[in-house]
């Protein structure tokens, strides 16, 4: 793992928003290295900062927000030094492309599908109209559009939600990006369509070799796509590791809580584990561990001092005082012990 090439490196990133003369700190000193060719999932609830964090990679923060501290480096380019939109254009779309949750808002409703794909090909690859059309049709076929020649001149409203998302993926691919940021691309889709889109993204990754940053709140989707996982809470990464680390050996109480709340492991007739309370307001300074007020394992120090990131293995890190040698030993909650065996039982049901 350590020999793999780092394609994007974020160090101590802090993002602040000005909201009605108040300051909201959406990202609080986040560091993360992303390796070439991997799929890293960023998991968190709404408001945890997972979208905001990745928007800093393409300069797409809303105008009232800015990276107030830290450094982001992509393949030798210091992204945090970029000032103008013109400079961003060399990165955004060309090198790092984003697919959003709602395909309808990313597509222009009054232009044909074919026009929207070829436009990108002409602009980014300098091809003429005829060549661009041919490549657009090839791309449409590649993302699973049946009969692309006939559907080239149709409009977005004539496509279903899943098909529209395929088009958005085709447009992103047209620029041959090195990193594809998928911001909840399947949240608005049906489960059967979601499964197809996830498979499509994975197949295309095999073919093109791009790196995927996958933002989601669905742990099922994470298990399906990710090589590595970063868990975010209240503007920080609280734990990261390989997908096996996070699901089978989680170390942060917040990750425990997320896994315990899964309805798949709930027992009939018993209450599901629910995380009490709500995340902290990021308008005021967070003292100590942001999760402490909702954490049944919180110690005195959690309310006073922010925990550092502790290394558990070469791949696995967590930001909790429980990993301090002085902390009492805490076992995994019963609900998520042997998660794999429990879920196997769920899958196999009455067969055993």
């Amino acid at each position, binding site marked *: 793992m350590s020999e793999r090439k780092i394609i994007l490196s974020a160090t101590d990133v802090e993002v602040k928003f000005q909201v009605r003369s108040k300051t909201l700190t959406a990202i609080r000193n986040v560091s993360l290295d992303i390796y070439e060719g991997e799929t890293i999932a960023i998991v968190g*609830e*709404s408001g945890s900062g997972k979208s905001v964090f990745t928007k800093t990679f393409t300069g797409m923060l809303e105008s009232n927000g800015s990276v107030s501290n830290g450094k982001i480096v992509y393949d030798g380019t210091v992204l945090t030094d970029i000032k103008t939109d013109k400079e961003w254009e060399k990165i955004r779309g060309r090198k790092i492309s984003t697919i959003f949750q709602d395909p309808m808002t990313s597509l222009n409703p009054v232009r044909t599908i074919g026009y929207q794909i070829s436009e990108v090909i002409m602009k980014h690859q300098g091809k003429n109209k005829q060549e661009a059309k041919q490549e657009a049709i090839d791309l449409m076929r590649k993302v699973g559009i049946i009969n692309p020649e006939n559907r080239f001149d149709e409009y977005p409203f004539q496509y279903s*939600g899943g098909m529209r998302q395929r088009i958005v993926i085709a447009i992103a691919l047209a620029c041959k990006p090195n990193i594809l940021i998928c911001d909840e691309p399947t949240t608005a889709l*049906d*489960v*059967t*369509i*979601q*499964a*197809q889109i*996830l*498979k499509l993204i994975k197949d295309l990754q095999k073919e093109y070799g791009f790196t995927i940053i996958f933002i989601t*709140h*669905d*742990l*099922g*989707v*994470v*298990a*399906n796509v*990710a090589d590595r996982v970063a868990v975010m809470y209240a503007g920080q990464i609280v734990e990261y590791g390989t*997908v*096996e680390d996070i*699901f089978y050996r989680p170390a942060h109480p917040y990750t425990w*809580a*997320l*896994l315990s*709340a*899964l*309805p*798949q492991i*709930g027992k*009939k007739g018993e*209450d*599901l*584990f*629910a*995380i009490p309370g*709500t995340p902290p307001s990021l308008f005021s300074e967070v003292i100590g561990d942001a999760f402490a007020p909702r954490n049944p394992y919180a110690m005195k120090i959690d309310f006073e001092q922010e925990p550092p990131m502790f290394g558990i293995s070469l791949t696995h890190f967590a930001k909790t005082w429980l990993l301090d040698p002085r902390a009492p030993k805490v076992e995994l909650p019963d609900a998520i012990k042997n*998660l*794999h065996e429990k*879920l*196997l039982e*769920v*899958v196999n*049901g*009455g*067969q055993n």
Partner: protein
Amino acid sequence: MDDKKVILEVKDLSITFGSGKKTFTAVKNVNFNVFEGETFAIVGESGSGKTTIGRAIVRINPLSSGEIIYDDKKISGKLSKEMDQWVIKNIQMVFQDPAASLNERATIDYIISEGLYNFKLYKNEEDRKAKVDQALSDVGLLPEHKSRYPHEFSGGQRQRVGIARAMIMEPKLLIADEPISALDVSIRAQVLNLLKKFQKERNLTVVFVAHDLSVVRFISDRIAVIHKGRIVELAETEELFNNSLHPYTKSLLSAVPLPDPEIEKSKELIVYDESVHDYSVDKPSFHEIKPGHFIWANQAELEKYRLELK
């Protein structure tokens, strides 16, 4: 099973939208019974007609044919004013989008009281206040939330308001239309627990409309799988998971991502292909293939499914 009381009967329900050439049949000859006190789930993809069925039960969508019987009384079609009010009091609904279903210009106090006002379900102002406070505390909100507006709440809290608004009417039957789809994972658990609590305390019957089979498994007693307006399979929850027969049910089950990387990596996706059914001569209908397990199939398929049954 036999001694359970049927509280809701949906008979041959069809619902069409539009007229003439543009007619679209959203729900086709749907039949099912719901027992008192159970959670009955209707699961399907968008456009399958699951929400339409739920809305037909609360009389938002008119039926094209068939009938709906609640507590031995017909509640579909034209009703007298008293009957209409009786239905509203007994059957309440919780909607998917808690932001869109709450009047954003009304206070929480008014939103929750609206049903009480409309039906004069309170003796005096004090009684109404007491009822609202109770409804709020039942869903885990505080009396001081009353003067606030919906936008001041988080998604999970708004959904609690939606549930409080329904439960203050003391309904016997609750139609929950994807009440947790718009919520975060940690909040989902809170709302699911809340619905279960009401069910235990008040013997509430719940019809739960959802697209996610994994959520439904945890809360429901029986599940109906619906595809393009038709129930293709209906069985008790564990029976459906362990013994699914219809290819569409199987494809749905395979598509749900499980939070386990090992299982996900070795999983095979089953894609439903409608052309596997040859209904040109041998016509399909709704059969009870084993007690409590229903399936939409023709004779040839029934034979095949019987062999598959465990």
